């Protein structure tokens, strides 16, 4: 945004963004298109696109209008008519569907059905329809949006779509994929979340390969929530990870998503279209869809660390549930064995549970299984009623599962039972060597 001073001058001279102007300084007179200002930097500096295409920032002594632009404002449709047997593509924003926005020059999450077809002509190979559900950075999404997405998926299934692909930002993608896995069970069609790490405004974006692989995979015979992302740094094949077992493990690489404590379900080759089964999975369900979409997201996810304060844990009593990311096998400083220098959090945990707030354990090791039976502090937690002994879930899946369980029941016993039962592949019975 330009400063008030500049905006006033622009208004007075009837200059709009996109108009051709001349800018005078003491050394030189520049001519170019007036571009919008990014939020960073000096808001008195004009951004000009020179006729070479370069943008430069100039502090003007004066500036004048040369020619106005015929700015085109396109109002695009955001939904297409559907046909039975289509693959539905739902847009929720994120890098995969982002583009450089003309007005701000920033990467902006938006893709309309028309843009989708222009950008990915290969989609013509499959019967598809698409809809923009909303367009958000995934960091701004929460249980409210998981519910919206689950509603849309359920509607698509009812309307006869043969598969559903959801374009989603990558940062919190696995929260959504695991939440939806609990909300919609016995899936009759594949539900595939897809994102991209490189923005779609660059020719190297992996969005194309991820999306095409997702749509292709959505025609296959499996009935689970999956996440389809690059398997390696190469543009060769993608993995389809189970929605409850996948985690973003790198800030920026294409192959950031990994299956935790299990193998991916499938590998799909972009060039040869080979679709390979890597682990067990459910086929398309012939019976009725189970829809249990109620959530209670008044849940805290807490990273345990040395010097963590007991008062901090006590204050969690305003939540309806707590997930801990414990150390190692699922531990916390208890203070029971060295009370002199350690203020443990065992006591406040016990108090939370006593007041009917379920406390669930996961491990900050990410890979491996929680075990509360080996060391004394683990045994103390188990005795206190902490849920999660033997669980090999990711902290995020433990979190969304607790949100979901608390949406189903308020009773501690029933929450415990739901948490300890494998619902959507989040708990495995065997730890395999990968």
């Amino acid at each position: 945004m330009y400063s008030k001073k500049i905006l006033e001058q622009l208004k007075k001279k009837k200059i709009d963004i996109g108009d051709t102007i001349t800018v005078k300084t003491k050394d030189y007179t520049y001519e170019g298109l007036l571009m919008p200002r990014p939020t960073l930097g000096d808001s008195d500096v004009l951004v000009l696109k020179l006729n070479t295409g370069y943008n430069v920032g100039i502090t003007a002594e004066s500036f004048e209008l040369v020619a106005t632009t015929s700015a085109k404002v396109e109002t695009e449709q955001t939904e297409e008519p559907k046909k039975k047997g289509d693959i539905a593509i739902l847009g929720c924003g994120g890098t995969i569907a982002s583009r450089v926005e003309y007005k701000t020059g920033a990467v902006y999450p938006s893709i309309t059905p028309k843009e989708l077809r222009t950008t990915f002509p290969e989609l013509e190979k499959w019967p598809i329809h698409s809809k923009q559900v909303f367009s958000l950075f995934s960091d701004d999404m929460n249980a409210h949006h998981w519910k919206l997405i689950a509603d849309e998926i359920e509607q698509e299934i009812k309307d006869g779509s043969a598969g559903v692909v959801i374009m989603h930002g990558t940062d919190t993608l696995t929260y959504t994929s695991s939440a939806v896995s609990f909300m919609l069970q016995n899936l009759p069609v594949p539900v595939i979340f897809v994102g991209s790490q490189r923005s779609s405004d660059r020719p190297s974006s992996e969005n194309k390969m991820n999306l095409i692989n997702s749509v292709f995979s959505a025609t296959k015979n499996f009935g689970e929530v999956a996440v389809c992302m690059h398997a390696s740094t190469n543009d060769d094949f993608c993995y389809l990870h189970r929605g409850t077992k996948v985690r973003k493990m790198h800030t920026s690489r294409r192959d950031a998503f990994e299956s935790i404590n299990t193998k991916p379900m499938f590998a799909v080759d972009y060039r040869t279209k080979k679709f390979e089964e890597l682990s067990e999975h459910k086929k398309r369900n012939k019976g009725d869809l189970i829809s249990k979409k109620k959530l209670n997201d008044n849940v805290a996810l807490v990273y345990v660390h040395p010097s963590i304060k007991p008062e901090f844990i006590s204050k969690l009593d305003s939540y309806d549930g707590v997930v801990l990311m414990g150390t190692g096998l699922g531990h916390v400083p208890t203070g029971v064995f060295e009370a002199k220098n350690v203020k443990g959090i065992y006591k406040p945990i016990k108090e939370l549970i006593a007041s009917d707030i379920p406390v669930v354990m996961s491990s900050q090791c990410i890979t491996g299984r929680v075990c509360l039976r080996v060391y004394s502090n683990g045994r103390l937690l188990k005795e206190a009623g902490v849920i999660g002994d033997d669980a090999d879930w990711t902290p995020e899946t433990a979190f969304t599962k607790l949100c979901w369980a608390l949406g189903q029941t308020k009773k501690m016993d029933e929450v415990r039972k739901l948490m300890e039962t494998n619902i959507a592949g989040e708990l495995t019975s065997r730890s395999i060597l990968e």
Partner: protein
Amino acid sequence: MKIGIEIHQRLDSSKLFCNCSSHIVEGDPAFTIQRKLHPVLSELGETDDASRIESTRRRLFEYQVFSENNCLVEMDEEPPRNMNRQALLIALEIAKQLNATIVDEVYVMRKIVIDGSNTSGFQRTSVVALNGHVHTSKGLVKITSIAIEEESAGIVSSSDANATYRLDRLGIPLIEITTDPDIKDAAHLRETAEKIGMILRATGKVARGLGTIRQDVNISTEGGARVEIKGAQDLKMLPDLVENESKRQLELLKIIHELRLNHVAGVKKSIEDVTSIFKKTEASLIQKGIESGSVVLGQSLPGFAGYLGRELQPKQRFGTELSNYAKTAGVKGIIHSDENLSKYKISETEQKHLHEKLGDCFALVVAPEQQAKTALEYVIQRANMEFVPEETRKANPDATSSYMRPLPGKARLYPETDVPPIPITEELLSAIGSSESLEDKQKKLEKLLNKELAAKMIKSRYLHVFERLVKIKTDPKLAATTIENTLVSLRREGVEFQNVEKALLDLFEEFNKDTFVKAAIPEVLKGMVKGASAESVIKVYRLQKITGKELKKIIEDENHDLKAIMAKHRLQVDPAEVAKLLKGKK
């Protein structure tokens, strides 16, 4: 004729958007990665012609990754770091030397390049200054803009379906200096390029060695079009390049004029599958193609007979132009009816059938069907241009050029949203180095050397070595003649140093200790070429200076005969000292 030049010079600094070294080392890549690229819309909602054409090739790119020179940034697996401040300061310093106006805010742009030479599919580039100038013997040449940008990846191999690049040089900072079309003629072009090159080297902050500087030439002739010729590495080539291009445009204008006089109307698309004509062909190129699933498509070019064979530049015919357009579809080229078809072993009967089907003049393409079709569409498109097209062309080693792609447009540039704009603050401006200007440097050299040698030295790519040698108290004239004469004649004998600077510093540190004589310099250098130190070469080859008592004894042995002494001991004695001793005797 209007001529402008773009000079790309690598800066002596680590990479522009990460902390990898720009120092390229020999060796094998640590591993390779494979990628695809596809075209995208610019911020103005347009795609660039040049990138759309490349994208029709759908090639697979393989990148060689080197551990010392590469990190996730070059692999396009991590956002760029902040712009390298040292490199930016060098660019600003050069901008000042070229009398240019520095912008108030630097915007990093993405220049779409989808031939695979950038893993991201774009080159990061920013204009840092505008409106500069250099003085030349034929007046001022204005500098349009000065940009700082990333070097591209180096090509290793390329085919229709694949291209392999090495990533070690990707991201090295480059400065791009673009002049206005103020250059008068071919000689002036060379002078301007040399002048700018000297100004760059005089800062002492640019990279040296083969491939660190490249020139692109912009030429437009009257009635013709603006053409950018890329990749002339040798200044000596520039005059021929200009002459050949002007000839090409002139010939094209003649052809266009004659076609018009002959009422040759536009070529209509009528692509025919003529594969069946070659069922029993002896033409191995066609036979092999058909065996591997290709088809032979033909397009009639009525009225073009005789023109396709017309020479535009040495060894480049009008047919070559059409063929180069076809090649952008990924095919190997075209066969046309102005060629001697028997040379491909296309039989008389086959030729007869071809003419029956396609008329007097035609072009053939052997390729997979879709590709062949696209290629012929490009041929039609080129044949129908009743003007000299604006193009980016590639300089060939023989100073001719070949079509690469249409001139890139504005749509090729959009903001790099991963790097915020960089304000040029007072603090940054005050941190700009103040290297000597070219004029000051020249004056200084003229004090140290005679005029002729000074003029040679200022142009030398080893100017910085000379300056270092003078700093360690080497006689300037000896340093200059060693660089300009001794090294040149040794090079002719095949004695070539990988690191001239290191060798000469070692040589003169030893020489300045007075351990050997001037006459032995070439011999010492010869001994040093495989990496030995000057000190050890002197010992092994027995080139130690003979002086004092030992020298007196030699004088006695040789009966005070200067000629005999020098004939035997030239490489070890200082003639001045001998002369002095002889004189003393008398």
